C-alpha cells in the first residue's frame, strides 16, 4: 500500500516535470532577444511578443497599485484595530468567497461594470481594475499572516517609548512585516501573468502596444491563448508559453523562499 502511495506521488511529480520540460524544450529555443523585443507580425505568425509584454506589465502594475493599499489596509485593520467579532468574520468571509469566485465570473463583472457601464471600453484600465479584485484576497491573506507574525513585544516596546499606535504600525510593524507582504504582492503578480479569462473580456486583444490606460492591450497569456486556439504559429505559441511559465515559476519560487525565511526569523 505504501509503495502504491509513493508510486502515485511519483506520478504526480512526473506530470509537473513533464509540463516544465515540454514547455522549456520546445519553447526556450524560440526565446531570443529578437523574440522578446520585437512586436508580433502578421497576427503573431511571425515576429516576437514585445507589445504583449508591455501590456502585461501595464495591467499587472495597475492591478497591484490598486489592490496593494486596499489589501494591506484590510490586513492592518483586521490584525491591529479590531478584536475578533462579527465585523472581522464578515470581512474574512467576504475575502474567502471572493477568492473562490471563478475568473469567468470576474470577467463578466468587469465587462458589464467597467467596459460597458462606466464606459472605459476594452482597456488597460478595465483589465487592471478587474484583476485588482481578483488578487485582493491573496494580498489580504498573506499580509494578515505577515503582520500577525511580528512579535507582540515590538508593539509593546513602541508604546513604552511613547509612540502612538499608528506610529508603531508604520515605523516598526509594517517594516518588520514587509518581506511577508512582498510575498503576497509577488504571488499576485504570478497570478496576474497567467490570467486569461478575465482579460479577454476586459482588456481586449488589440495587438498594438498600449500607450495610455484607455487603450486595449493583449497580455502574454491572452496572446498565447489566441496563438494556440487559432493555430497561428506553434513555435511562437511555445515560445510565449516558455516566457510565461518560467517567469511565473521564478516569481512563485522567490515568493516562497522569501516567506520561508521571513517565518523562520519570527518563530
Amino acid at each position: 500500500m505504501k509503495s502504491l502511495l509513493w508510486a502515485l506521488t511519483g506520478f504526480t511529480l512526473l506530470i509537473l516535470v513533464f509540463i516544465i520540460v515540454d514547455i522549456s524544450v520546445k519553447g526556450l529555443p524560440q526565446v531570443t532577444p529578437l523574440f522578446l523585443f520585437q512586436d508580433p507580425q502578421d497576427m503573431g505568425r511571425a515576429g516576437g511578443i514585445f507589445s504583449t509584454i508591455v501590456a502585461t506589465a501595464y495591467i499587472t502594475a495597475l492591478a497591484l497599485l490598486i489592490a496593494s493599499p486596499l489589501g494591506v489596509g484590510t490586513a492592518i485593520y483586521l490584525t491591529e484595530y479590531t478584536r475578533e467579532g462579527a465585523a472581522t468574520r464578515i470581512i474574512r468571509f467576504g475575502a474567502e468567497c471572493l477568492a473562490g469566485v471563478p475568473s469567468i465570473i470576474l470577467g463578466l463583472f468587469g465587462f458589464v461594470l467597467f467596459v460597458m457601464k462606466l464606459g472605459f471600453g476594452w482597456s488597460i484600465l478595465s483589465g487592471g481594475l478587474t484583476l485588482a479584485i481578483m488578487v485582493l484576497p491573496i494580498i489580504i491573506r498573506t499580509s494578515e499572516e505577515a503582520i500577525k507574525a511580528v512579535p507582540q513585544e515590538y508593539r509593546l516596546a513602541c508604546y513604552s517609548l511613547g509612540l502612538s499606535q499608528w506610529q508603531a504600525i508604520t515605523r516598526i510593524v509594517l517594516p518588520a512585516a514587509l518581506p511577508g507582504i512582498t510575498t503576497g504582492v509577488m504571488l499576485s503578480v504570478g497570478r496576474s501573468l497567467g490570467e486569461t479569462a478575465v482579460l479577454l473580456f476586459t482588456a481586449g486583444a488589440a495587438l498594438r502596444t498600449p500607450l495610455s490606460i484607455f487603450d486595449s492591450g493583449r497580455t502574454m497569456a491572452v496572446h498565447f491563448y489566441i496563438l494556440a486556439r487559432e493555430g497561428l504559429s506553434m513555435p511562437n505559441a511555445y515560445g510565449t508559453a516558455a516566457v510565461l511559465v518560467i517567469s511565473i515559476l521564478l516569481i512563485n519560487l522567490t515568493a516562497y523562499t522569501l516567506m520561508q525565511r521571513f517565518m523562520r526569523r519570527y518563530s
Partner: protein
Amino acid sequence: MRTQGKFIERVLFLLALSAVSSLILITVFIFMEGLPLIVHTGLGNFILSTHWAPTKGHFGIFAMIVSSILVTLGALALGVPLGLSCAITLAEFAPSPVRRVLKPALELLAGIPSVVYGFLGVVWLVPLIREHLGGPGLSLLAASIILGIMILPTVISISIDALTAVPDIYREGSIALGATRWQTVRRVVLPAASSGIVTAIILGMGRAVGETMAVIMVAGNALKLPTSVLDPVRTLTSNIALELAYAAGRHREALFATGIVLFLIIMLLNFSATLITRRR
C-alpha cells in the same frame, strides 16, 4: 492625537470593506444583467431545456449544466485519489527533507496558467484519446483529465494541512496498541482529518466547476447532452466565454444568466466548505 487615531481607524475600516463590497457588487451586477432573462424565459425553461439557439430566442442550458457536473465528477475521480495519495505520502511517510522539497514543488503546479494546461491537453492528450480510444479527441474525458490535474494542488495542500493538524498523540497511541503505520493512517489519522479532507475535495470541486480556459481548449464545446466520455461537451463556463464577445440583447442576458447559475453553484460549494471548517 486621539482624533487622528479615530480617523485612521475609520479609513482602515473603509479599506477593509473593499473585499466584501467587491463581492456584493459582483453579485448585484451579475444578477441585474441575468435575472431579466430568467424571468422572461421562466426558470424551468432556462435550466431544464437542452435547446440553446440564442439567435432564435431559445435559451436552455440543461446540457451545459449536465456537462459541467460530469466534467467535475470526472476531475474528482482522477484528482482526489491522486491528490490524497500525495498528501498522505508527504504528511505521514516522507522524511522531512523530502517533504520540504516536494511540498513546494507540488504547489508550483498551482502557478501554471490554465491556458498552458489547455494547450498541453490539445498537443498531447487529445491526439492520444483520438488515436487510441476513438471519437474526436476533444471530449468529456480530455476535459476531466486536464481538470483532474489542475485541482491537484488544491486537494494536496489542504489535505496535508488537515493531516498535519492531527495531534501526534493519536499516532503514538495507535502504534503503542500494536497497529502498523498504515493501519494507523487508515483507521486513526484519516478519520480524524476527514473534515479537512472533505473541505479539500469541495474546494477542488469549486476550482473544476469554475475553470474556463483549459476546458474551452480541450472539451470540444458541442451543444448536446453527451452519451459517452468520448463526446465533446460544452460547460457553463465555456458557454459564457465562447459567446460573450459577440452577444447582444437577450443573448447577452442569457450568458449572464448562465453566470448566475455558475455563481450559485460556486457559492454553495464555498459556503459548505466554510461550514465544515468552522464545525471542526
